[in-house]
């Protein structure tokens, strides 16, 4: 039995029905596969939870945080919903695009960073919200972008 399967079964034990563990299981599988879900990940999750790989993929495709294509080692996500947008989110997006040389939805050639625009991150009073590897930075402005990228590239 693999390490991933053990972890999935441990999580599944918390629920009356093991299928409930599919989101945590897919998240664990994603961590094991460099941040995305290749076809074999659905096999692994399916075997651990007694589900078909096709079912696992259909669930994964519903959720924005589960990635069906390869991503960079770091994920930078800029909220562009209305509250951040009213306060300059687009300038933050453009600063990341120009510093990284990619457009939203793309990954840098060296595989270091994926840039995404995302829907509301729930920090509307502290615009612009940028999620860096899932941790939220508040009050980000275009001028802050080079420092954020330097931090990621140094780390």
């Amino acid at each position, binding site marked *: 039995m693999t390490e991933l399967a053990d972890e999935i079964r441990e999580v599944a034990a918390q629920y009356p029905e093991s299928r409930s563990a599919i989101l*945590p299981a897919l998240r664990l599988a994603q961590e094991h596969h460099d941040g995305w879900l290749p076809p074999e990940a659905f096999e692994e999750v399916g075997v651990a939870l007694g589900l078909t790989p096709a079912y696992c993929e259909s*669930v994964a495709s519903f959720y924005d945080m589960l990635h069906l294509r390869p991503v960079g080692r770091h994920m930078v996500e800029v909220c562009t919903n209305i509250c951040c947008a009213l306060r300059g*989110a687009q300038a933050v997006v453009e600063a990341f695009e120009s510093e990284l040389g990619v457009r*939203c939805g793309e990954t840098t050639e060296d595989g270091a960073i994926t840039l995404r625009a995302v829907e509301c991150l*729930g920090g*509307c009073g502290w615009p612009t919200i940028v999620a860096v590897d899932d941790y939220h930075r508040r009050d980000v402005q275009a001028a802050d972008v080079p420092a954020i990228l330097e931090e990621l590239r140094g780390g």
Partner: protein
Amino acid sequence: MADRPVIVLAGADEHDLTKLAAYRAVGGYDALAKARGMEPQAVIDELVASNLRGRGGAFFSTGKKASFIPADSPKPTYLTVNADESEPGTFKDREIMLRVPHRLLEGCLITAHAIRSRHVFIYIRGEYLEEFEVLRAALDEARAEKLLGDVTVVLHRGAGAYICGEETGLLESLEGKRGQPRSKPPFPAIQGLYASPTLINNVETMATVPPIIAMGGAKYAKIGAPPDSTGTRLFCVSGNIERGGNYELPMGMTIREVLFDLAGGVPGGRKLKALIPGGSSMPILTADEIDVPLEHDALRALDTFLGAAALIAIDDRCCMVQLGLRVAQFYMHESCGKCTPCREGTRWMVQILEKIEAGHAEQSELDLLLDVCDRILGHCLCPLGDAAAMPIASYVTKFRDEFQAHVDQGGCPFKGSSTLEHVFAPVNQHSHHPTVEVPA
């Protein structure tokens, strides 16, 4: 400020209430002990007496909803907490989880006692990682101190889907499926999670329960704007405003007081143009409608809602067609695809708004847009379709001149200077949303 009651966030400015010892030092978990010494029905009676209404936006009596859970169910009963806060403009539940996680947990345990449940699931949106970690640490502390009794509390992280904040979408997701809403009835109180009786409550609602039990429902019912809008709300102030953030205030203050007296007004000498109450799904108010008190009935009289207590200020630089387009893009992205009016209608809305903004729309398309909204409203299983149609229809109706100007001038009258000019929407970077052309 001193005479304004602080209930949900009480003590959080003075102490680090994420730590169990600090929370207990301010009386934390005393209400749980008190509730466990009461009959479950007596706890529900206190909640009914407080007239606490659901803080997620539906504004239904929390006590009454709890009373719908059968007391003699042969199946297990479940308490599910909706921590999937995703409505643009709302960011209050995250502040509760970050600053008073034990008050939330205490509220869950009291409510579990009230409905004789031994199983609590907290469904927390996937994007709230830091909040999840704070809550997990608080739960570990509470468990180590044996405060949970015979109740299990599971923190369940979502994975990025607005629709999972809808209660039946949440249940589907928690059961390990795509988060597509169910038809009702049966209501969750009868057949919810795993087809068992299930109570679903919002984070702020749960965090308000311990203070109510501590002070008594009758006393709580006098705070705010009784009889219907009792107590405090965490108002989420955002947009073009000097001091954005959460403000816990008694219900009944006017929007103008909150925006201008507390949050510092609109910065840069700009003029307030419009205000979205409740969250992005709510009908908009014009700047001359903001003397309305923040309570349910007064906002209903203006054909809008208090919703999840968001206040999004919009200044005079914003093009309302662009606002409509960005809001419609959000709902198109988040539509789960189950009901045709919502799945197709949100796409039509986006395409018509794109044409209007580009200056290519014909006169008849303004009315076509309203017609599309009308054909969504009330025709879907869950409120997401309405959440898209209501705001867009209100922008067209209340700012008709501006929409008309786009048609008459063959383009945007802001000529590139609007605050929302060229905002990139995530829906445009995903390949799984095929573009459907609006037939001529």
